[in-house]
């Protein structure tokens, strides 16, 4: 955050803005200027531990370039001040007027193609078709499209995010949790807490997954599901390309698709629309797609002109696909009009430091009306800082050969042998300070938990310990948190990086802060 504010400070100080673009197509410059004025290179260099001259040079490269493509992923989204920082990346492109033409864009990416889909379909708890839960007209439109009474659309509060769902399960106001195709017992922060929540007797846990995982071990019911290649459906990539994914083989055994399972459940519940007809009027993947297509009509992710047959005939088509753009849209924002009209926008926005939700009147007062919004925020240190007891900063991440919690990649021999086991990385100077050599078994401990894994020396900066988050316990045996440990479980030989991370999340996006914790390190054996 400080670094990005520093770069903007330099762009503004050196007059490297595209003033015509900023004047015509953005709002918020005045406030941004005021905030970033506090971040000259010397101040930022001190916060970030980099030479001030490097910040000046970086701003110079950006400020003199004729093209600019920025990409963000979890490195930004799971860090301190995640949404605020992601907005500063957008700001830089906007200040330079570099968007909506070849070589000029921002990719705020999602973790995987299905993570883009979930945002469009409402499966993240947001409203389908990027509708605004605070906009009564959007709610009324959804109610009409689904033929239900308006109060049946839960629009009285923002979507309940996963960390909040787990808190409700912890305090007992949620008693039934259905987890589909993910593995929170390894991927969420503070794993002893996650295990103890999922392990409660009063919480009934159903898990859909294709393979046994640490989460299925804690489930009351496990439903085996079909994977890609075993079912028909579409994926949408981050560049808005919709792909049709055909069924190549039948799913094994009793496995069914997630969709078949949920449809079956809806039928058994007897879900009805307001005229007493079945709520879900589709049965096949293609019928479901057609229903979704209608719901996206007129929204930013407009699929209205897209069909399975068009997708079969092509390698993928980029939304929006409409009567005016029947073969899709290669590039957005070519007219430099953005989705910020108050009646159209997906969200009225938030205060970036507290997550306080803006309301319609706040959004109107900004007067964006199709112009991009420059968001500003001061730098704030993370909630947990290294101290006397825990002197190092812990950060988690990925390695190229493994995906998520390895439930698929560890079953691919080539990938598994390329990255078979966990480790932590530390800087040579820290290794020397703590008497640790490459390959030593070390214990890394935070206020919440510990892992015991081999050390690798080199590759990270001084004062930082890095751990890949992939390595849970499903391919050993999972120990009962309370009971006696079985060999290789979290109580016996903890390896999952999220044993150490803290229960904290970004106030706006609600993504867990997985990249920041204070830890100590000590050698166990050579």
């Amino acid at each position, binding site marked *: 955050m400080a670094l990005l504010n520093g770069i903007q400070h330099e762009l503004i100080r050196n007059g490297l803005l595209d003033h015509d673009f900023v004047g015509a197509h953005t709002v918020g410059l005045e406030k941004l200027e005021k905030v970033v004025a506090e971040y000259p290179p010397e101040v930022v260099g001190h916060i970030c531990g980099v030479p001030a001259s490097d910040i000046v040079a970086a701003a110079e490269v950006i400020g003199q370039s004729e093209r600019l493509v920025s990409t963000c992923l979890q490195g930004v989204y799971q860090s301190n001040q995640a949404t605020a920082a992601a907005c500063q990346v957008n700001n830089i492109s906007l200040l330079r007027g570099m968007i909506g033409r070849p070589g000029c864009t921002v990719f705020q990416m999602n973790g995987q193609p299905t993570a883009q889909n979930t945002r469009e379909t409402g499966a993240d708890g947001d409203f389908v078709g990027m509708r605004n839960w605070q906009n009564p007209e959007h709610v009324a439109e959804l109610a009409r499209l689904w033929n239900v009474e308006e109060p049946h659309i839960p629009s009285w*509060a923002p979507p309940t995010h996963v960390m909040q769902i787990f808190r*409700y399960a912890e*305090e*007992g106001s949620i008693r039934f949790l259905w987890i589909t195709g993910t593995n929170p017992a390894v991927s969420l922060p503070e794993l002893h807490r996650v295990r103890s929540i999922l392990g409660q007797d009063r919480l009934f846990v159903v898990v859909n997954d294709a393979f046994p995982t640490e989460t299925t071990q804690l489930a009351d019911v496990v439903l085996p599901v079909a994977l890609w290649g075993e079912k028909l459906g579409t994926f949408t990539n981050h560049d808005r390309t919709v792909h049709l994914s055909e069924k190549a083989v039948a799913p094994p055994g009793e496995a069914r698709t997630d969709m078949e399972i949920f449809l079956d459940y809806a039928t058994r519940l007897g879900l009805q629309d307001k005229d007493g007809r079945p709520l879900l009027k589709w049965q096949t993947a293609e019928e479901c797609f057609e229903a979704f297509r209608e719901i996206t009509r007129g929204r930013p992710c407009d699929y209205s002109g897209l069909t399975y047959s068009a997708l079969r005939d092509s390698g993928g088509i980029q939304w929006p696909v409409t009567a005016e753009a029947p073969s899709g849209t290669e590039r957005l924002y070519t007219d430099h009009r953005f989705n910020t009209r108050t009646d159209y926008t997906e969200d009225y926005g938030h205060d970036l430091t507290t997550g*306080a939700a803006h309301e319609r009147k706040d959004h109107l007062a900004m007067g964006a009306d199709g112009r991009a919004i420059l968001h500003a925020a001061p730098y704030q240190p993370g909630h947990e800082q290294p101290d006397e007891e825990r002197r190092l900063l812990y950060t988690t991440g990925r390695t190229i050969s493994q995906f998520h919690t390895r439930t698929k990649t560890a079953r691919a021999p080539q990938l598994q042998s390329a990255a078979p086991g966990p480790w932590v990385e530390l800087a040579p100077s820290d290794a020397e300070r703590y008497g640790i050599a490459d390959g030593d078994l070390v214990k890394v401990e935070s206020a919440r938990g510990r892992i015991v894994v081999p050390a690798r020396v080199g590759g990270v900066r001084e004062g930082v310990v890095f751990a890949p988050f992939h390595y849970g316990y499903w391919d050993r045996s999972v120990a009962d948190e309370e009971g006696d440990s079985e060999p290789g479980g979290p109580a016996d030989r903890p390896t999952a990086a999220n044993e150490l991370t*803290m229960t904290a*999340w970004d106030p706006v996006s609600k993504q867990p802060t997985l990249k920041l914790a204070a830890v100590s390190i000590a050698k166990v054996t050579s």
Partner: protein
Amino acid sequence: MKLDHAIDGAIDAEQSLANTLQKLAGRHAAEHDIYQLGHTQSQKASARARRLGDFAERYGARAPKEADPEPGLVDALRRETSDLLGRSKSTGLLLLRDLQSAYLDAQRAEIAWTVLLQGARACRDGQLVETVSAVHEECEVTAKWLRTRIKVTAPQVLVAG
């Protein structure tokens, strides 16, 4: 001139808000966002009170406290109790009550700044107007955060809890 009354009022309101937020954070530490943001916002509230230090001297008002309310042992105790009670039924209603009470404190601070701003304008004290305007907006954000959190909490507590 009675501007000292308005300065006292704003300082008192913010210091009291700082205390309330710190108690809120500790008592509901099992709600991790409230623990973290409650403490940050508490520090901001006492920092806002301190912004009036020079003006308090100039207009003969009471000086703001130098330091933030000290969390220390009491906070650790509150936090532990919250973790212990974090799985019991009544925590939701307590949370809702404490959030409402903090919201009212934030509103009290907000209106105290409004009063002071009016006084500063009438005195033509440009420096004070500038200071008050800046912190007034920040104080409104604190209230808005509490309002958002109340809107999230109320349906769950009242209907599902």
